[in-house]
């Protein structure tokens, strides 16, 4: 069965039992999350603070953890079904770039291995010579010189080099979709820019879609076409990046955008005066009833403490979960 969507999440929930010494309770790291990626190449940003469940979503899409309920469909088929039948095909189609560019390398092996394993597993080359050629091509494509990185152990490379090597790996595999979980949060400013440029290039040149996960709306705005805003495991707003940056609807999205630091000393005063955070509670517990954002929301109404607002389409392709817009 074909589908008009590349990937769609339908009411995905992942709950964990957290065991304290004295008590146990269930929390939903991700709760009823639904969003869709179109077939055409696109970068979608998944934005949220720590505890928003964005990494959990990445892991569910990659098939690393199973959702408690709900479905993830890739080209119309359930991802966990595909993984059972033909996991290699799915792996070739959907790839990952992880946050920590050091942890992702097995310290026992030279860094080349991540490329070689990919070539071998996905049958990318017929023989050794072709493999070497592919590797060199991939490295050059991301601006690395083969002699600088090949044969090295992970600790001998800088964070930027290691993360670019991951880009080279993605280039090698040329998947249909890359799930990139905070890929630039641990590398330097000057290398961040290079990395982001490449993600854009992959989309334009090779038609690779990307789910870009971050807490930083600034870089998200730079690479992404669409954005999904998460708060405490729930989707609060979905829409086009430019629309949302210019006119955020959900108060939480507005707070995130207000929090962005502008690299412009002259814009300082205006930003400062418009920024207010109310912190009424000490321990930020995720609310079990009502809107997840009720505690910090300056516009919270009675209703917000009683019911979870559903995600509704307020304009074309612009969804928001807030009682202010129902």
């Amino acid at each position, binding site marked *: 069965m074909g589908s008009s969507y590349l990937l769609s999440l339908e009411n995905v929930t992942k709950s964990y039992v957290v065991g304290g010494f004295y008590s146990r309770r269930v929390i939903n790291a991700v709760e009823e999350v639904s969003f869709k990626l179109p077939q055409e190449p696109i970068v979608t940003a998944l934005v949220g603070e720590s505890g928003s469940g964005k990494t959990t979503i990445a892991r569910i899409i*990659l*098939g690393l953890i199973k959702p408690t309920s709900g479905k993830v469909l890739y080209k119309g088929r359930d991802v966990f079904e595909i993984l059972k039948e033909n996991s290699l095909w799915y*792996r070739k189609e959907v790839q990952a770039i992880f946050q920590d560019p050091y*942890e992702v390398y*097995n310290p026992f092996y030279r860094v080349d291995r991540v490329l070689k*394993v990919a070539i*071998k597993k996905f049958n990318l080359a017929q023989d050794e010579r072709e493999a070497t050629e592919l590797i060199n091509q991939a490295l050059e494509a991301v601006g690395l010189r083969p002699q600088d990185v090949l044969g090295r152990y992970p600790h001998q490379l800088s964070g930027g080099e290691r993360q670019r090597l991951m880009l080279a790996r993605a280039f090698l595999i040329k998947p249909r979709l890359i799930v990139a979980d905070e890929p630039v949060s641990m590398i330097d400013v000057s290398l961040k820019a290079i990395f982001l440029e490449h993600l854009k290039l992959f989309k334009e040149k090779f038609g690779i879609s990307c789910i870009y996960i971050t807490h930083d709306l600034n870089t998200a705005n730079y690479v992404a076409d669409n954005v999904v805003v998460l708060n405490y495991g729930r989707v609060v707003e979905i829409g086009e990046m430019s629309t949302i940056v210019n006119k955020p609807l959900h108060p939480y999205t507005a707070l995130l955008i207000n929090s962005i630091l502008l690299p412009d000393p002259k814009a300082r005063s205006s930003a400062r005066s418009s920024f207010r955070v109310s912190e009424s509670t000490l321990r930020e517990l995720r609310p079990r009833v009502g809107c997840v954002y009720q505690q910090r929301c300056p516009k919270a109404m009675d209703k917000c403490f009683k019911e979870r607002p559903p995600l509704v389409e307020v304009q074309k392709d612009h969804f928001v979960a807030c009682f202010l817009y129902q």
Partner: protein
Amino acid sequence: MDKLPGRIAGTFKYFSKLLAGNKKLKVGVAIFTTIIVLAIIEPYVNRLRLGNRSPDEIGLGGSYEPPSPRFPLGTCPWGRDIFGMLLLGTRLTLVIGLLSGIVATAIAVLLGFISAYKGGLIDHALRSFIDAFLVIPTWPIFVIIAAYVKILGLIEISLLLALFSWGGAARIIRAQVLSLKEREFINLAIVSGMRDLEIIFFEILPNFAPYIIISLTNAIMGAIFAETGLRLIGLGPPLLPTLGYLLNLTLSGGFLTIRPYVVAFVSAMLILIFLSLNLINIGLEEEFNPRLKKVTGL
């Protein structure tokens, strides 16, 4: 993937580099190797010295003979050759230690791996069992079994020791597998399409060698420790003159009064075995646990 001979050579080079870098490891390996060599050449040395007679044969010499060229450490109350028995005891003690250490480590690796990798109910059951095993003093139970099951040979006592000493190692291995399992490179391996078994053998196991060696040395020490203790209270297989037996023999034979240095020699051999194994242990931990690195000082 790398070719196998290359990998073995690489591993060898890796270990020699490791050895060169750590003083404790170097000293430990040196002492332990020397003791092993002693244990290996024991049959030849004793044959050379005593002909076809075993050093623990009763009536080899007179009772309480003083040291002489034939009996460098004198004889026991029953005329057995103490020097020869020291070498033989070292050999037997080491064999028991190694045998039971290897078996215990094998059990520990297997159970630790299954427990951590599979998780769930199996893990829960195994973990509770191991925890209870560590809290309950198992040594007296071991003593009772060893005392009542009289016909214990070398193999039997080693297996029995192994049965009682895999708990600690299993715990370490389980914890290590758990932490390795959470590492991001395992996720990358999964995303790269590697299978469960490939991941265990190519991603987890290579990072694991040091912990297996640490578990092994720990288990060896545990086994020798328990066996010697058992012999000291006069129990255990009477036909196996291990170092513990010899220590008991010299202590109960009154050597502390007449020739205390004989007791000192026997004790020293045991101490060297423990010390060298432990130096190897600490050295390895320092090299592989960055948090621990160099903090043991020295």
